[in-house]
């Protein structure tokens, strides 16, 4: 028990040090500023385009959802690149040798990077959540969801579903973040980490364009499931929860979140997260820091 407490304390200290460092590093600040800069004018442009094409549903939630969908797509590579440099920043500055000559184990250091990466992802999603809902409220209002003055869904219901969907988005982005930390663990320079990281992101995104008719069968409990190869392109699976939320503005309630697509997303992203964690843990344990 004391070992676990000691481990958690060390990780907490490391995470604190990470945030002290990152919030003073201009690259990270610029990255989050870029996300904000993309989000705010992007939302305004999207609203203008909706108005111009007369395609608006006049629903603040519908607008927020559409905006969130696009902003997640645009922001994921940025936060991913920032995560790719999490470990590389210490290796390229050689500061890792000081960190590892303090009473800190390599596993604690790795876990602190994961916690920090998840924090960065959460911060990004919360930022996008605030911008999209804020814009929805500003342009159309966020009361009950109505159609011709009939209440289709109460505001609290829509907001709850929206929050659940966002949580699942976070789960998907955690797998992307794990890939970033893993890349960073093996890198010695920030440039190298970013380049290899983007190649991997491109590769896994490319997998998702394999036609859904191609795949393999997985038998679980005597039941066969078709698994398309495109499922392996996990970064794109992040958008599945937002697709589920798409039903709400059309008046269809969400009866279950556990659709086959959602199951596939949760299982695939969890497996990828576990895979990347194991790879990075083995990597950091074996690595000689000859800096």
């Amino acid at each position, binding site marked *: 028990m004391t070992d676990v407490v000691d481990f958690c304390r060390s990780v907490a*200290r*490391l995470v*604190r*040090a990470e945030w*002290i*460092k990152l919030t*003073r*590093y*201009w690259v990270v600040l610029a990255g989050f500023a870029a996300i904000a800069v993309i989000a705010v004018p992007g939302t305004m442009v999207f609203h203008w385009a909706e108005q111009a094409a007369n395609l608006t549903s006049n629903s603040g939630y519908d607008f927020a959802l559409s905006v969130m969908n696009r902003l997640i797509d645009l922001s994921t590579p940025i936060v991913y690149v920032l995560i790719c440099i999490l470990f590389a*920043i210490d290796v390229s*500055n*050689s*500061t890792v*040798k*000081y*960190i*590892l*000559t*303090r*009473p*800190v*184990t390599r596993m604690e250091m790795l876990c602190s990077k994961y916690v920090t990466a998840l924090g960065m992802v959460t911060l990004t999603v919360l930022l996008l959540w605030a911008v999209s809902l804020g814009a929805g409220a500003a342009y159309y209002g966020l009361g009950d969801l109505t159609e011709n003055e009939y209440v289709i869904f109460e505001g609290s219901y829509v907001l709850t579903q929206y929050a659940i969907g966002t949580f699942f988005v976070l789960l998907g982005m955690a797998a992307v973040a794990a890939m970033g930390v893993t890349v960073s663990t093996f890198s010695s320079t920030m440039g190298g980490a970013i380049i290899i990281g983007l190649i991997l992101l491109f590769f896994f995104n490319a997998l998702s364009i394999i036609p859904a008719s191609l795949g393999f069968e997985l038998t679980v409990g005597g039941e066969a499931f078709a698994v398309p190869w495109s499922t392996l392109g996990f970064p794109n699976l992040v958008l599945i929860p937002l697709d589920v939320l798409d039903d709400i503005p059309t008046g269809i309630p969400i009866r279950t979140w556990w659709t086959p697509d959602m199951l596939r997303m949760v299982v695939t992203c969890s497996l990828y997260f576990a895979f990347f964690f194991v790879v990075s843990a083995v990597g950091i344990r074996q690595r*000689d*820091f*000859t*800096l």
Partner: protein
Amino acid sequence: METAAPLVASGLTKRFGSRTAVQDLSLTVEEGKVYGFLGPNGAGKTTTIRMMLGLIRPSSGSVRIFGHDVRREFKAAIRQVGALVEGPAFYPFLTAHANLKLFGVLSGGVPTSRIDEVLELVGLRARAGQRVDGFSQGMRQRLGIALALLEAPRLLLLDEPTNGLDPQGTREVRELLRRIRDEGRTTVFVSSHLLAEMERICDRVAVLTQGRMLREGSLDDLLGHEADVVEIEVSAADDERARSLLRERFGAEPRLVRRGHLELRKGRFGPADVNGVLVGEGIAVEGLGLRRRTLEQVFVELTGETSDIQ
């Protein structure tokens, strides 16, 4: 109860592929002493220190710090160590003070007064608020030493601490290490190829070359207790003739330190014999003295290395 030695390395070996960087190195550092780890560049000093700190895994052998095995009881071992390994490294976008504060967080936090104290100690108090990317190499080196001292460690591991320092800075580091030694609370393990500096501060030294330890002992063991080197000064025009004459007469190889300045290891002959031979052959002796061997001389005798040793 007997306390464990601050640092014990046993059979330490490190191979990188087919190249052996350090081979079967064993040493013990006694409490409160300054231990010099000497060797030319590429001798394996930094690799050894990295193994001592757990930054790289030894191919075989072990390191114990105050009785704790570095690999098995890493935290207990490293908690008592302050280190500067192969050049200082900091976050360039943070100030000197912020860097020390950040690294202090890793051990649970260090009071601001202690940060100010170590910055004062290395002469950087006035620069505490300046970003590290504007620091010279010498200032970074001082900050590295400040970081190593930050948590008042019982064992200080310093790898080439005077690298990049000007003569004044080198002298200050020497004084600092002397002060630490005199206080007796901290054991210092310091690697360097600046032999003259090491000779002034170390109680005990190990000489390493090509990954092997050639000799280990106290300075008196290595340099001898008595003055045994004859220093001879003649005119620059006569030095080669004097050299061959002494070689011929005493069977020992005189060392030409610089033009007109020779050194000869004393044997059964003394300064008077040397003077007699040279004057007898018409060479004017401008100076003659007897002193103890320097660490540099011992080092050269042991390793044959001279190129990067000062």
